[in-house]
């Protein structure tokens, strides 16, 4: 019962992460479900689905077909839909029932690939373990491994990092609003960096696949840090894990980025010494994606806050070194963190902040996050990248 959520909704699942990561790339997303997960993804986890086009196909899985293994029915339907819509690729994404009956996503995708003559990818998702973060990582890695890895030796890389070219890695609307992404692009340009590609809010497949032309990857979320780590292993690309949050945090971030360009070694914003510039303030708790939260921590410590607790809701990953962080998916612990005593400031999604009981003398900073509260507080989003935080 410990993992039962009584007050909070389930956060965005892995299938939504796959869908979100692939959204802009011109593929057809086939969600193998009875239509519940498709509804979740399209209706609640994907803000872009309201005003732009994406090919999403719901297989409409039924009990008898699951028991009898009638996969051919679904293959035929998907083939017909793909022949009509002409996507660049097909992504087969799972829901709880296929996952439980041991559906072979890769084998199914291979079958589709043979029939359609276009790439098809299977994703073993089910919304039952992990989170959207795992889906984002799975999707980006699988596509890059398919399209680029076999050509690795022919890629022309800029070995001396003289181009000041960067990729933004791990950005999806589930973690980051369009406005904050835009603010990041703007500040990068102002500081003289050229943005090469955004994984995975690129405008198209060509931009997505040209990631190797950049010198450094900017891992802006936990998903981003996991992808960047993989790209470092496979393509020898260094990365910076973090975000330029707030005025002080932004200066700190670009000092770190300069260092990555100079040394070619990956670092995390939380690893570098922070210069305290503000007056002494109280304690803080931030509940967010670990990388976003530890980037907020940098700015708040520089502002003079004495202690900043980072509570990652999506597990412990790369990119969170030297942060006194807690990692939990446990509702009791999340609510306990929200109600932490001696806090001068609590920053979290408004849905979580609703459960803060004592609000006297505490500054509550709302960080609307689509993966947590979907469209409920989307109207409250604000820009904290390269802007003052919590003034």
């Amino acid at each position: 019962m410990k993992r039962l959520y009584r007050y909070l909704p389930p956060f965005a699942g892995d299938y939504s992460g796959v869908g979100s990561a692939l959204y802009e790339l011109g593929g057809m997303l086939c969600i193998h479900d009875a239509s519940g997960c498709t509804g979740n993804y399209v209706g609640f986890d994907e803000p872009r689905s309201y005003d732009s086009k994406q090919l999403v196909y719901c297989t409409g899985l039924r009990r008898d077909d699951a028991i009898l293994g009638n996969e051919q029915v679904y293959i035929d339907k998907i083939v017909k839909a793909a022949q009509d819509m002409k996507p660049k690729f097909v992504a087969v994404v799972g829901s709880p029932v296929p996952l439980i009956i041991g559906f072979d996503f890769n084998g199914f995708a291979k079958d589709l690939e043979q029939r359609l003559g276009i790439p098809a990818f299977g994703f073993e998702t089910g919304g039952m373990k992990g989170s959207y973060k795992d889906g984002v990582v799975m999707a980006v890695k699988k596509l890059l491994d398919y399209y680029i890895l076999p050509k690795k030796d022919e890629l022309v890389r800029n070995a001396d990092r003289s181009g000041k070219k960067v990729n933004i890695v791990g950005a999806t609307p589930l973690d980051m609003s369009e406005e904050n992404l835009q603010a990041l692009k703007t500040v990068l340009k102002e500081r003289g960096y050229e943005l090469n590609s955004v994984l995975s809010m690129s405008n198209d497949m060509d931009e997505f696949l040209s990631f190797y032309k950049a010198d450094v990857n900017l891992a802006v979320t936990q998903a981003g840090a996991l992808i960047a780590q993989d790209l470092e292993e496979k393509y020898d690309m260094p990365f910076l894990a973090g975000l330029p949050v707030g005025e002080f945090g932004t200066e700190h971030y670009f000092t770190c980025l300069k260092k990555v360009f100079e040394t070619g070694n990956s670092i995390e914003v939380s690893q570098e010494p922070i210069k305290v510039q503000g007056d002494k303030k109280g304690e803080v708790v931030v509940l967010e994606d670990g990388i976003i939260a530890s980037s907020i921590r940098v700015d708040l410590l520089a502002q003079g806050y004495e202690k900043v607790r980072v509570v990652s809701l999506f597990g412990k990953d790369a990119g969170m070194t030297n942060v006194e962080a807690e990692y939990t998916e446990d509702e009791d612990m999340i609510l306990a963190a929200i109600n932490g005593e001696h806090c001068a400031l609590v920053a979290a999604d408004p849905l979580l902040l609703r459960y803060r009981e004592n609000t006297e003398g505490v500054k509550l900073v709302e960080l609307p996050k689509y993966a947590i509260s979907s469209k409920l507080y989307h109207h409250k989003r604000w820009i904290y990248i390269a802007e003052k935080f919590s003034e």
Partner: protein
Amino acid sequence: MVKIAIYGKGGIGKSTTTSNLSAALSMMGYRVMQIGCDPKADSTKCVMGGVKIPTVLDQLREKGTDGVELEDIVFEGFNGILCVEAGGPTPGIGCAGLGIISALQKLEELDAFEVYKPDIVLYDVLGDVVCGGFAMPIRDGYAEHIFIVTSGEMMALFAASNISRAVDNFKNRGYAKVSGIILNERKVENEDTIVKQFAKEEGHTVIQKIRRSDAVQRAEDLGQTVIEALPDADIAEDYKECARKIMEICEGIELEKCV
């Protein structure tokens, strides 16, 4: 790493064959992992000195999904052979196929192959490909080669034909291919001819005949393989020859890469 699945009718001698192949391959200097994929969980008994090891599903039941470590499910037997038994659900309840899936996924999750680095993995799989769970060992990423054990008996050939057809159904999916038939002799009249003819019709080859011998029973009574207990027996030579041919076949075939 070479990954092989052994299929065949229930009771035809798959576990005996697999265990003796594991032993023979280990004597050739290979590091072998044998994974029993049958709820009976007795595939590795003769490699483990007659002892039944705790199964992956037993340990999951007892320790919970997050509490199981590799040392709880991987055991070293004769000549360093690494033994794993997938196990099964409570008899009469649950789902055996899903049990196999969960067990193999647990091994993957714990990076068993990266940790132990076996040269050869042998999956000993229950009789027929009855559902997705029993096809799991031949899916992309698992075994690359299938060897079917059969005798000249009609039911054994019937089961072998079913297995061959099931594998053929998955030809578009990058699954493992049938790489040969192992004839486990039962002294049926014209057995060699019958099995050879069967193999020809199915488009396969009989790679080795394992002669019938009471040495198998004597070794099993000791809780051992023939290779360990009676290494000079004629049948031990058959297993050694079979192991050599399997490696020749497996190392010579290049598999197409899957998405």
